[in-house]
């Protein structure tokens, strides 16, 4: 594919267009990803999540400067929520990253959550793959996270950084929201404000008391992203975690799991897509839909009828 070749050769415009195609689930996507895949696996992916306004974008901006100083190239995926009412979105993370606009070593892409329920659009993992193949050393994914929906980001990222602020309530709230479970590193940003030290202490105690899921002890850091304070320490902890993942064998294990779940997701999605297409266009299905709509039959019984109709199922499978 011409577009993929140009992207692999380092051109930004084809990369941007490929991301759009992935985002819009264009029919060419399986072929695109097939060609891109052999060029992936080199980038290190960092997830940054936390409540709106916590300073995630500001932190990503500063981390990007840090990685650039080390000579590493950076890809950024910045996610903001789609409005459930209009389907539109305001994507405002770029405002904090202006210093990198003209740096050819930084590629920033804003994404809306679109149909996904979590904080991560379901196409984001494929976009990470594109940036990886493009040759970015570091990929940072920013998502708005207020709870368990953020499991997605943990699956996609090697290191997940959870960003909180002193105003966000106490550590119990954080634990209830499930942010503790997904964090590899916890950051209390806006440490220039009152209550930061207290929250750090509370979180540290929580980490010590909490159930141990691995040999990695979650560090709790105080930062002031807007004033460039604490960024070096955060960079160091990310590096520690990377080394830990590598030496413990967890990185390879995670990559294996990622490949497996990716495969299963693809199969699941494609079967579902094709089957739904057939089912929606089948006359017998439409007849059942009419009966359900009018209330002649309840949806459970109608579904049972379809599933018990072996012949019909076999016919659909044959057409798939």
């Amino acid at each position, binding site marked *: 594919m011409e577009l993929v070749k140009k992207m692999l050769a380092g051109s*930004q*415009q084809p990369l*941007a*267009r490929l*991301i*759009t195609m992935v985002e*819009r689930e264009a029919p060419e996507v399986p072929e695109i990803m097939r060609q891109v895949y052999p060029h992936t696996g080199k980038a290190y992916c960092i997830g940054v999540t936390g409540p709106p306004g916590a300073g995630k974008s500001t932190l990503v901006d500063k981390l990007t400067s840090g990685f650039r100083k080390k000579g590493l190239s950076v890809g950024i995926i910045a996610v903001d929520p*789609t*409005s459930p*009412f*209009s*389907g*539109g*979105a*305001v*994507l*405002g993370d*770029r*405002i904090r990253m*202006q210093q990198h*606009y*003209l740096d050819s070593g930084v*590629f*920033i*892409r*804003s994404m*809306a959550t679109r149909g996904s329920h979590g904080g991560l659009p379901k196409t984001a993992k494929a976009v990470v793959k594109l940036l990886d193949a493009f040759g970015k050393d570091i990929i940072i994914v920013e998502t708005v996270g207020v709870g368990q929906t953020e499991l997605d980001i943990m699956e996609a990222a090697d290191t997940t950084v959870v960003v909180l602020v002193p105003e966000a309530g106490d550590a119990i709230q954080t634990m209830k929201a499930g942010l503790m479970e997904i964090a590899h590193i916890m950051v209390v940003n806006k440490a220039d404000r009152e209550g930061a030290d207290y929250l750090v202490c509370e979180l540290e105690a929580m980490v010590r008391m909490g159930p141990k899921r691995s040999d990695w002890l979650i560090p709790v850091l105080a930062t002031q992203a807007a004033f460039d304070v604490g960024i070096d320490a955060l960079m160091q902890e990310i590096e520690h975690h990377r080394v830990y993942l590598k030496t413990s064998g967890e990185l390879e294990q995670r990559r294996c799991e990622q490949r497996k779940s990716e495969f299963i997701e693809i199969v699941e999605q494609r079967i579902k897509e094709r089957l739904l297409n057939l089912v*929606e266009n089948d006359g017998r299905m439409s007849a059942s839909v009419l009966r359900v709509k009018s209330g002649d039959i309840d949806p459970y019984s109608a579904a049972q009828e379809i599933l018990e109709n072996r012949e019909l199922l076999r016919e659909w499978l044959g057409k798939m």
Partner: protein
Amino acid sequence: MVKRESIRVLIAKPGLDGHDRGAKVLTLGLRDEGMEVIYTGLRQTPDMIVQAAIQEDVDVIGLSCLSGAHNYLFPAVVDLLKAKGAKHIVVVGGGIIPQEDVLLLKSKGVEALFGPGAPIRQIADCIRAAVAGKSGV
């Protein structure tokens, strides 16, 4: 089943004036019209705007300018897009723009210009028509 895709718009404020109220109102309004709006903030150079537009693969750039430098800044963006092979991106402008400048800017490739009182619906419809026109639908 063909899903209608959200139009992607980049809103930028070139020039040195520090008022972005209008740009923010427009950003929210276009979101409510179902568009994905990337807001890039104040004091952007044409270079920064075009670079961002390319990475974001937007359909439209909306420029807002109250400093009076629109006669230089708007065409600079159009020309840069052309130079980078991205002339498919529609450029619209907003601000207090005298009628003679409107004609000049349109002749230089700016698709449409809107005064401060223009209703969002009208701007959105104009954007939708321009995007449909450029993609040949």
